[in-house]
């Protein structure tokens, strides 16, 4: 029985390994045939910025890892529109296409889930 699992990503990508490790768990959730979706919000939107280069600080590139999500069957990528406006980010700045949600839509997204985690 597949569960609806939402990963809520609200951390910037390189200040800690949280983002990178969270993405590793999302890839596995995709492999395990769950109904996975991802919501980028707050500083988590910075994970989607294009032209990242983790090699500049000796690590992997978070944006590139996110690019693998569709191959793993994770195609429901949502992002918080009010957060993007606050941070001055638009589709043109991002390395992946996302579906923008306002707060009411995010509330409905959460209301459909069996599990929400980070």
């Amino acid at each position, binding site marked *: *029985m*597949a*569960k609806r*699992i939402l990963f809520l990503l609200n951390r910037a990508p390189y200040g800690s*390994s*949280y983002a990178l*490790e969270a993405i*590793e*768990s999302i890839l*596995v*959730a995709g*492999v*395990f045939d*769950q109904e996975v979706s991802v919501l980028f919000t707050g500083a988590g939107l910075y994970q989607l910025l294009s032209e990242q280069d983790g090699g500049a600080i000796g690590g992997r590139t978070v944006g590139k890892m996110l690019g693998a999500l569709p191959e793993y069957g994770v195609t429901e990528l949502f992002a918080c529109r009010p957060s993007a406006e606050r941070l001055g980010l638009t589709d043109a700045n991002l390395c992946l296409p996302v579906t923008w949600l306002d707060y009411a839509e995010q509330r409905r997204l959460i209301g459909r889930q*069996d*599990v929400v*985690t*980070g």
Partner: protein
Amino acid sequence: MVISIAVHGAPYASAGSRTALRFAESALRLGHRIHRVFFYHDGVLAAAGQGVAPQDEEDLHAGWVRLGESHGVELAVCIANALKRGMLDEAERDRYEKDAATAHPAFTIVGLGQLIEAMTAADRFVTFAA
């Protein structure tokens, strides 16, 4: 109710590991079942078997070991997060030819599939953030 728990923060640096332990103890006392506690990110450091707790502070590691040994709760440590932070069981110690196992044997080192299984097999999944 069947509950799975994720612990994301290190003992000491985060209050989350202690909060999660207290929550798990209450849940068991109230007759619920803990399917698995999954230690992720710095949460894996709860397994550190060589720690010496300060005399005037609760020994959190010992509390987790007690939960595992006395109540049969599965304490699962993410292998990828554990290896890079130096948490090894005997099998990983041998595989990587290190001097010592550092994780207490009450904890089992597992793959990320067990995190997803922890979500699907439980009625509730509760994440304790760092």
